[in-house]
């Protein structure tokens, strides 16, 4: 719930920005997106000044306990804070079809009291300790993330251990939790961009990965208390769970504490439901709005693919900054929109690029045509200046991440989930340095963006050229 307030808050707090990637908006989005959906690759160390301390592999730690729980650590001794992320394999991809939203409702329920604390005591203790935290439901995991002063890790861990091991799941709280979730689902209907992205995702990823994490009003209404209890019982299991710590902390002490807190936990979480594709690739959703919202998606390579960085670099050329092709062609040269952007979405073994723009209905057809033209033109290759800019941008972002312990902790979890290991920061930097125009162009020639999924939302449907489908 924390992050939803942030999302809404900026809607009326009228500070208007030059471009859509406003700091607050980004923060709110990041909080809502999932651990593995998030922007990967834009991280690691590499400030020329401080690289030696930042990027040594020995600052990373991995331990797998006997019960299967994995503890990841990355020491960032220049910070005074520590970031903590806990992921349990209880994401929305596990929701039964007629109970979609179960993972989200379960998240609400486990935060309503655990161990010796009731719901009020739980929230108040975290506030008194000055722990800034949030929860998120991804397709694979429920993730709790927290930032705190280094000295407080030993007090925070037992509180979060209670949430995972001893949630109270008070029966009388099910109805309020359900009402809250249903209201969130309804509120999202009033956000055209959110609705558009949801419809696009539904058509470009297979079931169950294509569902909104919150579920639907009817399926949430059908969930019973026993469903929540059974879901916790099956999925809150150590084998498949990951805890990541980044920032200022002592590895040995932390490992001993985690062992003490979690050693009696046992069991293995089940696998997600089997895949199933929906075949509808073009869709118009009628919507009462001044703007038409356009979403175009195409497949790309997953995070663990050898060509991943080539794909990321080509996305950077398309939409990595204000000099990137989409911003230049759609907004700067033609003034067709305020927002135009493309983002990488990764799930296990699969990835897609989502392109988005919102524009006045009368100019929507031209916007779609220009957007498709630019995406298709990628296969003709990129220029070396374009690639150089992308490389500098990625390397800067990697340094900025070194200033945030919580986002680093989340990245460790993303690496573990998608790669089965933590990518050392030096390796990331080398992968970026090694990118060449020839390699990117070969990749684009062999993997041209094609087979588009196209969704529009607004007053009128648009003409979609058949040759791009």
């Amino acid at each position: 719930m924390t992050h939803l307030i942030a999302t809404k808050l900026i809607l009326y707090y009228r500070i208007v920005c030059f471009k859509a990637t406003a700091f607050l908006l980004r923060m709110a989005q990041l909080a809502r997106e999932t651990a593995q959906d998030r922007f990967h690759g834009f991280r690691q160390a590499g400030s020329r000044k401080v690289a030696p301390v930042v990027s040594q592999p020995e600052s990373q730690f991995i331990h797998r306990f006997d019960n299967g729980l994995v503890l990841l650590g990355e020491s960032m001794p220049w910070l005074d804070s520590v970031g903590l992320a806990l992921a349990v394999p209880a994401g929305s991809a596990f929701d039964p079809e007629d109970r979609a939203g179960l993972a989200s409702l379960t998240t609400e329920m486990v935060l309503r009291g655990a161990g010796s604390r009731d719901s009020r005591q739980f929230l108040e203790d975290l506030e008194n300790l000055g722990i800034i935290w949030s929860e998120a439901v991804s397709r694979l995991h429920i993730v709790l993330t927290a930032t705190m002063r280094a000295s407080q890790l030993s007090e925070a861990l037992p509180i979060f251990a209670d949430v995972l091991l001893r949630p109270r799941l008070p029966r009388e709280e099910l109805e309020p939790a359900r009402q809250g979730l249903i209201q969130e689902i309804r509120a999202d209907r009033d956000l055209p961009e959110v609705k558009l992205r949801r419809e696009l995702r539904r058509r470009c990823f297979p079931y169950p990965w294509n569902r909104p994490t919150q579920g639907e009003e009817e399926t949430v209404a059908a969930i019973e208390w026993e469903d929540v209890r059974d879901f916790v019982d099956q999925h809150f299991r150590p084998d498949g769970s990951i805890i990541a710590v980044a920032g200022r902390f002592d590895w040995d002490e932390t490992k001993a504490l985690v062992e003490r807190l979690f050693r009696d936990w046992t069991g293995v979480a089940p696998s997600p439901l089997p895949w199933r594709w929906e075949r509808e690739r073009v869709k118009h959703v009628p919507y009462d709005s001044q703007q038409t919202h356009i979403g175009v998606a195409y497949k790309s390579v997953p995070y663990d693919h050898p060509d991943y960085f080539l794909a990321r670099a080509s996305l950077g050329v398309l939409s990595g900054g204000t000099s990137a092709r989409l911003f230049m062609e759609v907004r700067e040269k033609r003034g067709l929109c305020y927002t135009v952007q493309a983002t990488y979405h990764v799930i296990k073994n699969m990835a897609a690029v989502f392109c988005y723009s919102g524009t006045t209905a009368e100019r929507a057809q031209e916007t779609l045509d220009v957007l498709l033209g630019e995406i298709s033109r990628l296969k003709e290759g990129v220029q070396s200046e374009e690639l150089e800019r992308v490389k500098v941008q990625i390397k800067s972002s990697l340094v900025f991440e070194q200033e945030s312990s919580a986002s680093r902790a989340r990245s460790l979890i993303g690496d573990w989930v998608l790669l089965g290991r933590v990518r050392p920061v030096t390796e990331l930097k080398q992968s970026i340095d090694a990118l060449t125009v020839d390699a990117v162009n070969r990749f684009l020639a062999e993997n041209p963006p094609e087979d588009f999924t196209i969704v529009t939302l607004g007053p009128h449907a648009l003409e979609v050229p058949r040759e791009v489908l």
Partner: protein
Amino acid sequence: MRFYSHILPNGLEVIAECSPSAFSTALGFFVRVGARDEPEDISGVSHFLEHMAFKGSGSRTADDINREFDEIGAVYNAMTSYDSTIYYAAVLPEYMEKAFELLACLIRPAIRPDDFELEKKVILEEIRMYLDQPPYGIDETCRRRFFKTHPLGQSVLGTVESISALTPEQMRMYYQQRYTARNIIVGTTGCVDFDKLVALAERYCGDLNSEENERIQLRPDPAFGTFRHHKPSATQQYVIQIAEAPPATSPERFAGRFLTAIVGSSTASRMYWEFLDPGRADSVSLTYESYEDAGIFVTFLSCAPEMLEENLERLRKLYNQLETEGVSAEELSRVKNKMAASLVLAAERPSSRLFAIGSERLTTGEYRSVEEELKIIDSITLDDVNRVAEKYPLSCNATEIIGPMPQGSS
């Protein structure tokens, strides 16, 4: 962290909070110009001007600016509000000079007619984008009604009509009046070499116009009452309430922040327990905005239409109780812990400190280190908070409601 300040002969001030071991440098040009400074017929010009800043200056084109910022891997943007316009960039320390040069270029835009007409289309798209999103513009209508003739009631985006009618000449004249050296503060945080920074400011900003240009300041004379708007296509019902609050220059502003956190922060606040925990609303918040001559508390609530009346009543009771009984010592102590922790954690990132110190300097002329901020947090008493709760009653407000529920005013 050490603080430095230097004022150029033309009146432009350069400030820096330096942490030599930081990995990045954040720079911001904080300009004392916003919607409140606009004559009515050119409403939205401050924000449009901020967009034109990125369209080039001198021999630089818009393409050059976009390309050069991307070449140094900058995270950059600009924003316009009611009382300020901020241009900022976060970069690796070795790119500080280039980032400074680019930001200095932004604040002297060429305003070329072709660029102007093209960017006008982007602004019109932005206006339409906001009109399609909750709360569908009632935030601005509520402000306008609350502030009446006070300039803080003016719109940041302007309207389709005012933007369509705007000319480059009008914008240039407005620029000449507002973008003077005395209206600009250059703020920096993180890894900064202050001597070098001052030299850069002299080189790139030394010739800025040094004219005095005072802003009109007024005591607000607010209007209250409730207005309802009908939007059948919306799913949820949206409520905005604006009440008076201490101005940014008042010592009561710190207590105002505490009151806001106790009542309306995202977890464990009074609003959280009243609305979010029981699932009565999808979103609720109380925020505090302060300006030189006025302050406002803004309540935002969004919920299912059938819950609206009950929620309005709950909100009224919550505020009445606050005004008569005040807050408790436990609430205050918890919020102190939370605010101190947030302050310290946020201070690790130069980019988050930049907005704190730059905006404070621009609005009040003050600077406070993290340690001084912590002392203030520690010093606030229950009396301080309860006095503000009583003096600035949240229940006395201008309210606007929009959603599928039928229209009418009460």
